[in-house]
């Protein structure tokens, strides 16, 4: 069972603020989904390799050759806020 504080922890990790009723809604919906997913626990996966890719491919490289970068103005074009040639954000405090 996912409780409200778990939803809050996860929402915080995902940097999404939730309204009060959303916590409850998500908790109940996620519990439904997790209850459904629960069936995976019945499956014996001992000794089974995990599959993280849909194709069996290895060693895909590129050569160390310089390609054109974006013109600076294009790189900055979509910025919600910028100053001079920098992207601008509220002060970063650790």
């Amino acid at each position, binding site marked *: 069972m996912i409780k409200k504080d778990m939803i809050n922890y996860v929402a915080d990790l*995902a940097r999404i603020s939730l309204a009060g009723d959303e916590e409850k809604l998500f908790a109940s919906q996620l519990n439904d989904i997790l209850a459904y997913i629960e069936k995976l626990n019945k499956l014996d996966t001992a000794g089974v390799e995990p599959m993280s890719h849909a*194709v069996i491919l290895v060693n*895909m490289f590129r050569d160390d050759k310089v390609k054109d970068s974006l013109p600076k103005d294009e790189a900055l*074009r979509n910025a919600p806020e910028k100053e001079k040639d920098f992207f601008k954000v509220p002060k970063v405090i650790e």
Partner: protein
Amino acid sequence: MQDFCTYTARQLRQAIEKDSVKAADIASCLLARRNAVDKKVNGFAHFDKKLLLERAEALDANESKGPLSKIPIAIKDNICVKDELTTCSSKILDGFKAPYDATVVTRLKQAGTLLAGKSNMDEFAFGSSCETSCYGPTRNPYDLDRIPGGSSGGSAALVAADEVIAAIGSDTGGSVRQPAALCGVVGFKPTYGRVSRYGLIAFGSSLDQIGPITKDVTDCALLLKIIAGYDPMDSTSIDTDVPDYTTSLVKDVKGLKIGLPKEYFIEGLDKDVKEKVDQAVDLLKGLGAEFREISLPHTDYAVSVYYIVACSEASSNLARFDGVQYGLRSKKPSLLDMYKETRREGFGMEAKRRIILGTYALSSGYYDAYYLKAQKARTLIKQDFDEAFKSCDIILTPTTPTPAFKIGEKTKEPLKMYLSDIFTIPANLAGIPGISVPCGYSKGGLPIGLQFIARPFDEAGLIRAAYTYEQNAGFERIRPEL
């Protein structure tokens, strides 16, 4: 003037070659059709009339010689087109103009196609109904109270409504095949790695594939030929030759071994759907195909595996939408609040739900129970198919358990919505190709789709089977009344 909108790509190419049809004329047909029906269908997320006319003019001026010259194509709104809005039908990408073309877009431009606009979709491709778009739902041209399917609902509806000749979609768990089935058109999901994902805004990176949505199998082969092939910009793209798929447009299934997975023909399958699929089986039998029952024993786990894998990957893929570099930014004095408020305001409910589910599945202490477990189960699902393809060449299934459902019917119960992709999800998990072709209509007049699935990289085999069926199916295509 001819109404070119009703043509297939091949028919339009013939007309262009025979009568030197101008792109400008095709564009005006499109505009007229759009004006007449798109208020009802809402298939476009972004449509720029001026740009369309300019493009048409440029194609006419340059006497473009590409293989699909002047064919109007809609691009799903999660595929980047340089200097045009690409927003995944999400508020969080409000105003975002990609500074580059997706590889498929580059190829379509080289082929001379007339890019007709960005098609509407479920926000970030999260959905099976096209209801989660920030631009409002797309409606099924066959019944405007019903969903067109999703997430490439806009692409499928535009093709079905004759607003474009063909469209490009993306398929993570059925997002090309399912809307194609529900809108009565052809939808193709290639083998993972066959079509470059570069420029496709990722949902589930290990599942996503771009595919064409067309009026018939012939157009599907034409488009696939253009977009398929190795791309050095995508590490998961495969460097093998792309056959000329048009040579597979052959009416012959004699001796073809077709498997019917018993797990797909179960209770809950809509009666009309079952009837139409049974008819298709009989028809193919009559044409010499050899049927056998097969088993894909881990089918029941597919939806669970899919939602864990896809949501986990999505939670990470969507982390970049934070208001820093592009898109929406909520004004807040602190950085943390800016992040949280931007993402609260920018993402719709389904996006938030999936991000939270995926973040949870990956978070410390839960990874092994969810993500790792799902990856292992995914291996078993893939092995089911490997085993099945030892005794058959093609697998035949319904594309969806039911015809199109009503708008709003499943929005309150996410799990029910998720289960509507139950027949299409396994191919994404296994990375194998699948095609949905129309196989008739329900008693209520709603389209029904038939799905063919093949071994990895056997797109040609799929096209041949689907084409043979399509050419012999013998039912009259009903155009939607709009």
